């Protein structure tokens, strides 16, 4: 029996089905909660916002009726839920009547670009630093990188992002190096401009993750290098390089990979701060705008998408774990 065959046993499939059903239930709960929070603590009256400054009460009432806001809450939620389940219809923005689904799908590649690039950067930075710090524990390099990591973890994205813009953007920067905020260009339009416009957001988003992951890799590898099987590997006459690379890292990176899966899931739901600071038209920016505009369908849509990615990442990571660690069976 092959490795895949033994991992994808029938009990595993059953487990996956159970997880998917549970995930669907969670999405219902999340959407209901979002709905409830919005209606119980509204940030503003959506109808009044839509009506503009010189709105008459009649106009507002008319808008309220058009948006269906005069119906009882449970009816509103029922119509909303029915739309999603039957037509995968997330409704239309209160603000500009644009389909939320189409908005999210046009913005998804943007968020995907941001997440993927940041992920590549943070892993490329974190793994070598973590490994070297673990091997040269308590060395100057270890102390310096771990100190820097602590700073990077503590620095909020909006702070780092603004500093980066003030330093390097070609409009307000000290050095006119990279395109500044609002310069996002789709990959299909110009790969080079796509790359340069995202470079700063990637680095800013990756900074905290790189720091966190470097510390995690370091900690895991230090723990792993104390294991008995590392002693066995050395006693077998393997080179230290192989002991660390094949025996230490293999075990130390397993939890890192699963953690990364979860983080990617979270980021795909929208890197709100980064997208806002750099004015990148992704899902995070959309979520931010929809909250500002009290745009319930857009809020529901982005929240549901975020929850979906987190749930999907969780299931994916659980399946992945069974492949990475033969001891894990469901």
């Amino acid at each position, binding site marked *: 029996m092959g490795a895949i065959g033994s991992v994808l046993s029938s009990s595993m499939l059953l487990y996956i089905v159970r997880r998917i059903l549970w995930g669907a239930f969670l999405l219902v709960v999340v959407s209901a909660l979002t709905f409830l929070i919005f209606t119980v603590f509204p940030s503003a009256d959506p109808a009044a916002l839509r009506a503009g400054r010189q709105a008459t009460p009649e106009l507002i009432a008319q808008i309220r009726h058009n948006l269906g806001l005069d119906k009882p809450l449970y009816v509103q939620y029922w119509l909303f839920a029915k739309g999603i389940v039957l037509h995968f219809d997330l409704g239309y923005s209160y603000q500009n009547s644009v389909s939320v689904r189409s908005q999210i799908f046009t913005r998804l590649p943007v968020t995907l670009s941001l997440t993927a690039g940041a992920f590549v950067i943070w892993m490329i930075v974190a793994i070598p630093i973590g490994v070297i710090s673990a091997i040269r524990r308590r060395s100057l390099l270890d102390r310096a990188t771990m100190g820097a990591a602590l700073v990077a973890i503590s620095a909020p994205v909006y702070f780092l992002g603004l500093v980066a813009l003030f330093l390097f953007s070609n409009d307000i920067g000290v050095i006119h190096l990279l395109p500044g905020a609002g310069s996002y260009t789709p990959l299909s339009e110009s790969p080079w401009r796509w790359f340069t416009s995202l470079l700063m957001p990637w680095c800013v988003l990756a900074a905290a993750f790189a720091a966190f992951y470097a510390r995690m890799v370091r900690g895991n590898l230090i723990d792993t290098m104390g294991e*008995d099987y590392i002693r*066995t590997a050395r*006693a*077998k*006459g393997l080179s230290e390089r192989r002991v660390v690379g*094949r025996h230490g890292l*293999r075990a130390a990176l397993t939890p890192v990979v699963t953690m990364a899966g979860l983080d990617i899931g979270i980021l795909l739901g929208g890197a709100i701060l980064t997208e806002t600071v750099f004015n990148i038209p992704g899902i995070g920016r959309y979520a931010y705008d929809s909250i500002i505009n009290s745009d319930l369908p857009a809020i529901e849509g982005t929240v549901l998408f975020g929850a979906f990615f987190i749930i999907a990442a969780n299931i994916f990571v659980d399946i992945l774990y069974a492949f990475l660690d033969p001891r894990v069976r469901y």
Partner: protein
Amino acid sequence: MPLLEVRDLHVSFETRDGTVRAVDGVSLAVDRGRTLGVVGESGSGKSVTALTVMGLTRLPNATISGEVLLDGVDLLGLTGDDLRRVRGKRVAMIFQDPLSSLHPLYTIGWQIVEAIQAHERVSEKAARARALEGLREVGIPNAPDRLSSYPHELSGGMRQRVMIAMALVLDPEILIADEPTTALDVTVQAQILDLVRELQAEHGTAVVLITHDLGVIAETADEVAVMYAGRVAELGPLTGVIDGAEHPYTWGLLQSLPSAESSRSEPLHPIEGSPPSLISVPSGCPFHPRCPYAMEVCPREVPGLLPTTPGHAVACHLPVSTRRAIGSEVRSQEAWA
């Protein structure tokens, strides 16, 4: 010249609580095809001695001095590839807990193949064939299937057999077994010891068997070293040390063994007190605080490991005649002789 000779080995570790003197002047030797049994309580320095032979105690906080001669070459001076070529190839080691000593994420076949390919330029296929042969030799049923098993899928005894197969697959001159049966069921212990003995006879391997169990030693060893607080208390041929024990600590170990003849109601005789801290080892003879025969000289002077009969050496201040008198008395009281 013995195959492996440890001369005046000292190993200490700097810790936050102070300097741990794990090994304090140990000299041992083992010849081709022979078995040296090293016995002592935990913290007696027996494992650290073995690990130091393999170069596995070279931590930043460790200080190591003395000599570990393999065919006259000092292993303590070897580094890099020179050390790597000895490990696993000429001196192999198996450990106490086979589950934690095998990598949990690689198959058994992969791990044995890796051991072969670390030392010999052979194809994956040839290495796999030898791994299979090795598994068969240690009596693992369904060996071809087991090659693709993971350690957690095997029983404890089978795992230790895998460790032995992996250690012996390159036909090393010396096998160091550090408490190889401690983590196993009693019934499996005997099987593993028999297996080691069998393979040793077949391959002419020298074995260093480290254990806290004098019963295991009595069944397996040719020579015995009794260790206490990082030093050798008594060293000699099996019969000399078991039947003619002259060190009070060895007596204590022998008396604490239950015997087949002693009735169940008869209490065991543990050695009073507990092993000393290796940070503040008692002055003089380290055993004196627990020794029922301690004399005025014992806390003052460290006893040398001096020969009493040919091949048998004891580190004790008691006069030889007194030791022999007490020894035969102790023996007559107990049924272990």
